[in-house]
């Protein structure tokens, strides 16, 4: 029995770790863009919920998953637009407006769910799409290449985000706006435009994060189905020290430990379930302590930019 388990367990932990990491990746990479440009968005969870609902509802009524995906992105982008207007134009305190948007998304998604659906329904979500050839590789193929398309998307996002942030002029602008908006502004970089871009992008990706749950991984919508996942995603940005790869490491660590604790319970390892559930949180902190990072937050994070006074 135990022999069978060891291989199964490892594959199991990795596969479900990867699935669990998916929404975190979308949301946390989106948040990374925002924070790199100096905006802390605590409303991620709300954006995810509204995105999840939009995706689900559109997919449910039109039976077209891609339309659902689009809907989630649009809704996320709109939430981002609101956040951008409030923080960039109105200089509202970022943390608190994020909480406001979180509450709005939390409530609105449930309200719409009640009005439009009334009860929990299911959709046929994105199916598992094995990657040709790669999925045939033993073990690895099973873990990485037999997932649904939104899972692949999340992991592809990491190198893309890294590339945009570090290799493009846009990335240069984003980084400088988050670090020293006065300097960027003095060189003709529009701080507002850059921040609008990153916040809306962040919202779009949060919407996708929600969609990855409601029409790819779980295929249901329920009120508050993210249960604070968006806040963990924000925390993971700090774990990853505002680097795409770091965020990936954080998301994987957190998710893997989470799936490991599920396995621990299944394997009857005698620790109380509550303590097992704590593990991902504790380990995330311990790893950070062990790998003392010297990177500091973008200097302008949470600071509104106001030229001319």
């Amino acid at each position, binding site marked *: 029995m135990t022999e069978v388990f060891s291989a199964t367990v490892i594959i199991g932990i990795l596969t479900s770790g990867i699935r669990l990491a998916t929404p975190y990746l979308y949301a946390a990479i989106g948040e990374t863009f925002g924070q790199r440009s100096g905006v802390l968005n605590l409303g991620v969870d709300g954006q995810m919920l509204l995105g999840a609902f939009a995706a689900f509802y559109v997919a449910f009524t039109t039976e077209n998953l891609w339309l659902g995906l689009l809907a989630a992105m649009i809704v996320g982008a709109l939430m981002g637009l609101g956040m951008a207007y409030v923080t960039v134009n109105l200089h509202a305190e970022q943390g608190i407006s994020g909480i406001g948007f979180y509450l709005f998304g939390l409530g609105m998604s449930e309200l719409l769910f009640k009005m439009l659906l009334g009860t929990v329904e299911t959709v046929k979500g994105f199916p598992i799409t094995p990657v040709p050839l790669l999925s045939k590789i033993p073990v690895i193929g099973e873990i990485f290449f037999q997932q649904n398309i939104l899972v692949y998307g999340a992991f592809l996002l990491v190198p893309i985000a890294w590339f945009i942030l570090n290799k493009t002029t846009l*990335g240069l602008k984003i980084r*400088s706006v988050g670090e020293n908006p*006065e300097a960027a*502004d*003095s*060189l003709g*970089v529009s701080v507002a435009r850059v921040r609008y871009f990153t916040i809306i992008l962040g919202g779009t990706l949060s919407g996708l994060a929600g969609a990855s749950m409601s029409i790819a991984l779980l295929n249901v919508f329920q009120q508050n189905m993210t249960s604070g996942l968006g806040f963990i995603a924000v925390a993971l940005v700090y774990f990853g020290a505002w680097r795409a790869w770091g965020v990936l490491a954080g998301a994987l660590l957190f998710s893997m430990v989470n799936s490991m604790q599920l396995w621990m319970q299944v394997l009857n390892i005698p620790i109380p379930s509550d303590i097992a559930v704590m593990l991902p949180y504790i380990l995330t902190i311990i790893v950070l302590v062990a790998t003392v990072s010297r990177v500091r937050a973008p200097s302008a994070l949470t600071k509104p930019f106001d030229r*001319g006074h």
Partner: protein
Amino acid sequence: MTDNKLPSGHTRIDTLEMRGITKRFPGVIANNKVDFNVRSGEVHALLGENGAGKSTLMKVLYGMYGPEEGEIFLNGNQITIESPTDSINQGIGMIHQHFMLVETLTVAENVALGLPSSRGFLTDLDKVSERILELADIYGLQIDPDAYIWQLSVGQQQRVEIIKALYRGAALLILDEPTAVLTPQEVDEFFVIMRQMVADGHALIFISHKLHEIMDICDRVTVLRDGELVGTKIIKEITKSELANWMVGREVSMTRELEDVERGEARLVLDHVSCDSDRGTPALRDVSINVYAGEILGLAGISGNGQRELAEAVTGLRPVTKGRVLLEDEDVTHFRPGEVTERMLSYIPEERMKDGMIKDFSISENMVLREHHISPFAEKGFLMLKNIAEHTDSMIQKFRVKTPSRETKAGSLSGGNIQKVVLAREISRNPRVLLAAQPTRGLDVGATEYVHAQLLEQRKNGTAIMMVSEDLDEVMALSDRIAVICEGEIMGIVPRDEATPQKLGLMMAGESGEE
């Protein structure tokens, strides 16, 4: 129409005129109906005391501040400038008094920021680096394009600012105190660049508190006082002392005689001290210096050669890796900054905005940064606000800090007035040992004179003073002895009467001054 193009391809700005500019800040009118104009082929000096409104006027021109009133005309046509993007598009560039650099980016990235890239969406940092090296070569500004800004000394950062401006090749360039942190040699090289640019048809606006620089390079000068225009004159028609007089409203004496003061015991002893830089590389190598009561020891050197680290090692801000620091015979090598402070060591840090004061604190709060916890400013853990207020008021008066009130946020003061707050705090405690890094950088002539007087006063009182400065004139004018530092090593210590600019210059460049 090629003759209104500059070599860089920009369209020349024949005339630029600002009319009736008014800009207010809470409690201050920084510019009050100021007229100003500059034309192609001239260096136009903008002169005025600290807080006169020079930077503000230039920031209005550059689009960083929106003025309440006023108009701007370019080549006779009225233009609107609402953001730096507008001014950049009009061919205006600016080197800022407080650097506009992104610390976490490299030099090349800072230069490339905001510019179109030859690779479209992708950055072309290799190309930019190449061009930076070219420019550095042409203008004698040594700089490593791949270095991060936070790794650079203030002087090096100033060079990056200059390169940034050169790289962009504006038709009208505003230079807000670019020479404040350059060495005399660098200033000379910089003037060569400026002359070249003027000859090419650029228009330059130059702000500096060093009158000889203005006499040297400028064609016309406009003087501001308290936000008001005093007037504009042609440099050739005015002398340096007239200029000082005109600006301050009275005579200013620039040369000083050192009074004879009995040299006392060695108050500060550095005994074979080594320490590392922020980057983890050795910054100080085996430095041994004594500073005696009643003397001013000048520490000359090009910025970035370990001066900052030396001061921080002494003040407990930076761990000492080898050797000992003795303060009045007490070993303070591994003391915390607070413990060093308690032993009456004062330190005027070079980067005062970052290290020396808290921008969002009021002037009074900044005034007691070091002594907020001791009598008379605190009793039993409670702040004595009345005493703090009285002390601050007297400091504001004594040092003539230009501010609406003592409750004004320190960060909203003009560059020079920020300095005064720090100086007032450090000097007024009558320290046993005073470390002063670039104490007069950015101060107007009147203020410089006052600070010098204060330093000499302290010297007379028996304080041991170490003055770190790149300004050789200043070092030679005030120091009893001059130590020269290069790459973290002391090249030698020269008595005042043996010091010549040539000799010091050679030592600063790394030649040993052993006698």
